[in-house]
């Protein structure tokens, strides 16, 4: 009996085992596996949510790549945002974590200040940044103007809108800082002391101890943030509506528009699958190459 092999004593215990994990199993099937299957099927149909769905095979996928010029634009915008955001976020978060890891006065207060933005609901922070970025009356432009600089058309300019969203995203690095900080505090003191004894400076500690021991955490933060950036939605949805001239139209916003604005559920689902595969591919590349630059204690 399978239950006995797994270490359960009786049928009763096996039953209880199943009962106890049933919420998770049910959750996974009902809220993950089933919707994914449905989405895959929908991506092969033409469906406006009102009339009956019509099976069209791969037509939606072909349409995306051949007819929908906004699709490629949204991919470009999203990749631009990701490539700009992720490295900057990582560098700034690592810097912040290193500072917080030293014995500065008011460390706790700084920690709170850095983390605070992560506690603000994203809708609220979007509305707040909308005001900060306002080109006529925004605080940022007010400050620029008061020191004699020209006003910048932050989110009103098609060249500045993605960098503006990046700035806003960087403001929100509290989560990453905390994870880096946890990693930094896990670095054995004796290794750092060993560097000092050998006459190494801070740079050597950083280069030969901190970075290697932190590399798995860097990998984790990089993957998680990359996925978050690829799913950019709320900020452009609330702040720009994808404008000006579609220059902040993100991949997910384009999916949303197709699904709920134009009633093209099939096309939208096909795009969602393309996004899934794109994310999977990028993650795979990062994972595959990570063995060259991550170091796990106890490895080799």
């Amino acid at each position, binding site marked *: 009996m399978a239950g006995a092999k797994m270490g359960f004593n009786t049928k009763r215990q096996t039953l209880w085992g199943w009962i106890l994990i049933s919420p998770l199993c049910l959750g996974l099937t009902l809220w993950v596996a089933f919707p994914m299957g449905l989405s895959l099927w929908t991506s092969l149909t033409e469906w406006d949510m*009102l009339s009956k769905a019509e099976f069209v095979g791969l037509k939606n996928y072909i349409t995306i790549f051949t007819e929908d010029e906004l699709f490629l634009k949204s991919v470009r915008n999203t990749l631009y945002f990701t490539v700009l955001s992720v490295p900057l976020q990582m560098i700034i978060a690592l810097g912040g974590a290193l500072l917080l890891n030293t014995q500065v006065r008011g460390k706790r207060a700084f920690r709170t200040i850095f983390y605070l933005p992560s506690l603000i609901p994203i809708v609220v922070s979007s509305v707040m940044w909308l*005001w900060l970025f306002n080109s006529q009356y925004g605080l940022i432009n007010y400050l620029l103007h008061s020191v004699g600089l020209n006003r910048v058309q932050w989110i009103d300019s098609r060249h500045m809108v993605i960098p503006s969203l990046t700035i806003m995203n960087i403001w929100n690095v509290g989560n990453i800082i905390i994870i880096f900080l946890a990693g930094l505090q896990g670095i054995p003191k004796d290794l750092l002391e060993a560097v000092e004894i050998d006459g190494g400076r801070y740079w050597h500690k950083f280069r030969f101890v901190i970075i290697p021991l932190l590399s798995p955490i860097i990998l984790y933060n990089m993957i998680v943030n990359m996925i978050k950036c690829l799913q950019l939605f709320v900020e452009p949805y609330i702040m720009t509506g994808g404008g000006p001239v579609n220059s902040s139209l993100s991949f997910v916003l384009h999916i949303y528009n197709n699904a709920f*604005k134009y009633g093209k559920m099939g096309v939208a689902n096909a795009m969602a699958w393309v996004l899934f595969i794109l994310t999977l591919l990028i993650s795979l590349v990062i994972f595959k190459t990570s063995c060259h630059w991550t170091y796990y204690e106890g490895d080799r």
Partner: protein
Amino acid sequence: MKSKFLVIACILFLISAGLCFANGQKATASDQVNLKYIYWGSPAEDAAVKQALSEFEAANPTIKVEPMYLPGDLDGSTYNAKMKALAVSNTLPDVGYFRPEEFGNYAENGYFLKLDDLIARDGMDDSYLPQTWLKIQGNTYGAYSAAECQVMWYNKKVLEDAGVPIPPTDYRNAWSWDEFVTNLKKITVDSKGNHPGDPGFNAKDITRFGVSYDLWSAMYYPSVWSNGGDIIGSDGKTVYVDKPEAIEAFQNLSDLMNVHHVMPLVTGGTSVSPMTMLANGQLGFYVTGQWTLLELGTMKSFDYGVAALPIMKKPAQLYVSGVNVVFNSTKHPEEAWALQKWMMDPSKTLDLYTSGLWMPTKMSYYTDAEDLAKWLDNDVHPEGFKEAVVDSMAVAVNEPIMIKNINQIWGDYLNSAVESIWIGEKTAKEALTEAAGKIRKSGLLQGTY
């Protein structure tokens, strides 16, 4: 053993409590009808609609109306998304507002109650404006909630300060476009007191603007029509947006921002409402929907007036409104229809009209002097409102909501083209020629409902 008993007891208790609750609901439902009324709008509109609904309840004690309010968004995409979710999950309300651009699609798919028999039975056919009833293939499935249009408000004090004459209110003898622009330049001023055209005028440092136009699809029609152009033909198959008349109209609007510098560059992100700017004296004119009078009327802090829309070639006006429908899924069609009729009858919901939110759809409120006075004679409606706005409905053309895919034609092609004109990146000719070409190739031109 004991604990097991407790668990079972708890479960039994919960089930029985649930049953009792369900029974309780049924007991009240037998003598009372519950309706859900869905609508969008500003907080002020929300309050006005809730007031009308509770008056309906007072007049019909057996009917209870649950308001379903969705805060307004400019292009209605949130409302549409919500509606779609309700439709797919079979939880549509009984009656309420509906986004005009989606009306045809839902009507064709049988989501609305056919109203013809009810209208005929209650003798309502001839007593309402002919544009009010919305028909698909000869059958009526809804009615415009109100008669609404484009208006031009102004701040009297700003005009006086700038030495601009009070503009005409007769919609047929309004300012020409050139007169309009000349006056806007007088109003616009930078922080050093220079006007556009003055040496040393700094366009990046303007403290008071001449005008702000609401920049969204429906609001472009009157300008384009006034210039003798169109966007998509009423057959739903012909594109007119790249014809010279339409191009010139869009270029005129763009020039307000990029050449004359008399209008703030408003794109998606900007969040200071022109209404606030108007009230603060940072704006001379505001061209927007007439329903904004509801907000304007509550601003006691400044003196506002209404002017006739400037004329490019001929007077034009737009008939635009949300739609009112009874959903086919309702279990109480009679009561739902009674509620819709209530909302359409100014004698029952006069507040919605006197407050400035709506203009009536009932004919006598335009033709009968006594009825006209009922909704126009008050502090909210400024002097000249009748000549500038009410009378202009004589030339009003319906927003072309019966064109298939019109929402997506705007969303995918025209909005971004128009935006690139507003930010001065392309001329109207370049942007609209390009967009028109794409629309013709897009396969979206599928005629009308």
